[in-house]
């Protein structure tokens, strides 16, 4: 029997946009230009476009898989792999989300330490971020949707900062176009995956959406929106920096804020990084929610208890990952898992499910 969520805990169809936008746009927006430019240079925007299209296709698969079953991923796993193996897969899925919240929290703490408060300890920053995220998780799915909406409202004024680098852009930097081979352009797509992962949260959040059929289009819009945002930001960055310099800049988006010159504000990145807190909050809250929700559905334990245990767990693990190399490694691991999950596991699930349903149908007929 697929899971049913009471109507008073559900959200309106258009919240699909906020879920996906909220979890996709996050900490890696501050740094993705560098890795992409390192690999593919000025043609990176094509890569972003291709990965955006790919993500739309995968979103379509996610919808199909969910619609056929009518429940969430835990139901699907149970149906396809049985109770034990399915349960194991579901736990792995939850741990994947836990890793995601850990990576986001640790990377944000590092940025705050480097750019704003070099003396502030990890515990203070992560305590504030994790504590706030937990309060939203404990408030349930609807309160997380609230912060997703607010994060968009709060971070939109940051777009104004993109006007400041315009006097310094050099359009020659985009030329010559298609400088790299098509294969290189496509294979660079894995560098973009960290910016797109997260919308798998739908596997658990789908039952929380009223009239899911109506909500589907909002999901496609959300990915379109994030893709356009990434392309815009990437093009501005490429026009603003020579490639050789960009390769050495760890957070190009933050560095662009440095050119913002306001009479009352010498360092705009303080504002930018502070506002970015509201952009990563839905990231952490949603992934923490997904992780604890997975455990709740598999083991039937109170979600608040798992959520608080999980926040403490990532809080402590984050402390031991204290060097730049550790954080880079963590990002690389998440990137690989995310890539494997979205581009490997989801299509696999899609194919397997349609085969199983076909077989069932045939058996049912005869």
């Amino acid at each position, binding site marked *: 029997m697929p899971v049913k969520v009471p109507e008073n805990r559900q959200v309106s169809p258009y919240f699909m946009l906020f879920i996906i936008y909220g979890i996709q746009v996050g900490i890696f927006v501050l740094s993705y230009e560098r890795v992409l430019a390192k690999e593919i240079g000025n043609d990176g925007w094509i890569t972003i476009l291709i990965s955006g299209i790919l993500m739309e296709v995968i979103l379509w698969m996610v919808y199909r898989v969910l619609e056929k079953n009518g429940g969430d991923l835990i139901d699907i796993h149970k149906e396809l792999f049985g109770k034990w193996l399915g349960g194991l897969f579901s736990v792995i899925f939850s741990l994947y989300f836990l890793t995601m919240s850990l990576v986001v929290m640790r990377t944000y703490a590092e940025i705050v330490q480097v750019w704003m408060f070099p003396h*502030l300890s990890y515990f203070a920053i992560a305590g*504030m971020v994790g504590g706030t995220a937990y309060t939203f998780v404990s408030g349930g799915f609807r309160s997380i949707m609230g912060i997703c909406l607010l994060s968009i409202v709060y971070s939109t004024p940051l777009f104004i900062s993109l006007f400041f680098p315009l006097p310094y852009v050099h359009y020659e930097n985009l030329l010559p176009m298609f400088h790299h081979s098509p294969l290189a352009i496509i294979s660079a797509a894995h560098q973009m995956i960290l910016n797109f992962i997260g919308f798998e949260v739908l596997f658990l959040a789908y039952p929380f959406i009223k009239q899911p059929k109506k909500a589907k289009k909002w999901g496609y819009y959300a990915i379109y929106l994030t893709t356009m945002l990434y392309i815009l930001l990437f093009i501005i960055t490429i026009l603003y920096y020579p490639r*050789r310099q960009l390769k050495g800049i760890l957070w190009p988006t933050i560095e662009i804020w440095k050119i913002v010159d306001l009479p009352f504000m010498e360092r705009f990145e303080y504002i930018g990084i502070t506002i970015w807190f509201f952009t990563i909050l839905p990231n952490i809250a949603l992934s923490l929610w997904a992780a604890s929700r997975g455990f709740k559905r598999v083991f039937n334990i109170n979600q608040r208890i798992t959520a608080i245990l999980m926040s403490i767990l990532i809080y402590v693990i984050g402390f031991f990952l204290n060097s730049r190399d550790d954080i880079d490694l963590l990002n690389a691991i998440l990137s690989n898992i995310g890539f494997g999950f979205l581009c490997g596991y989801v299509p696999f699930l899609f194919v397997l499910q349609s085969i199983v349903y076909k077989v069932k149908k045939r058996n049912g007929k005869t």
Partner: protein
Amino acid sequence: MEKLKRMAVALSSLLLLVGCEQPKVVDDIRIVQALGYDYYDESHILGTITTPIYAHTGGSGQVQATADTYSVVSHIGRTLNTLLESRSEFPLEIGKLLVILYGKDLAKGGLFPYIDVVNRNPDVGRTISLAVVDGRAETILNHKFTTDQLVSAYLNDLIQHNTKASFPKNNLHEFLYSYFGDGMDPFMPLLKLKQHHVEIEGIALFKGDNYVDYLPFEYAYPFKMMFESFNDGSYEVPINRNHYMSITNISSKVDYKVENASSNRPIIYINVKEKGFLRESSSTMQPKQNIKEIERIMERTLEREGNQILEMLKKLGVDPLRLGDKVRSYDRGWSEEKWRAIYPHVTVKLDVRTTLAQTGIIE
């Protein structure tokens, strides 16, 4: 009630955590506004800083800033910080830095180590001014100028004000862009102390990060015209031996085209379109000066001066106009080495078109 209590505990613990950061009270720090680097000897450099001291002047309540400037000699490769801190009663903060000066002798040996320190520091903005000093940076920073500003703000304003009218745009970001970019070389303003004023002597040209030569200030306008598009420039057209016409509010557009980009003899076309106003008030009008004729003289003069600049740059082998980058954008097989080899022989065709309008209040 129970819930409220728990909330209060959580909130107050957050406040405790925030207390970990060291507070920086503005009265208890020294704000470094200008930095100067000079050559001292083979293995030492002379570093100079200027920090404002804010003191109340009597009972007026007004705060007048006075500059405190001091220098230290440091070994090459050591940061100046420790030595500078040893002479300062408060911690030095670099976040409000406005200008960095480099002595010409030091600039000849390469500036990158001194610029990289600033580049890596998250506290420093990207719009600060850099300049080479013909002479010693220390002398300028120690000089008492007749201005109500500190020497740091004075120098920064001097450079930035000139960038608006007739000097090419430059700051830390532009320097880094040209330094890191392929097929381009950076430049800075060259400053000189003349009695009681600092004057922009010209454009200091760099090869990589080494100072090589400079373009005199007279060439700054034609350089700017080829370097960037801009609004609100001004230029004086020499009509004859001792008569000049002043053109103001010039909006200038530059457009690059490259032919035969992948060959060994690329042809670069620089097309400049200028629109300006003839201000009769700022020059004595000759009777019946034909505006078409002034346009032609202006075009010819700018083309001649522009070509002189291009010849000089090619001879020096430096590329502050970023011509290499223009060729790169047309050529897939472009490489820095190849460009450097052919740069002295490339053909550059400069074409200036001017449209002037007359303004004045008397016919």
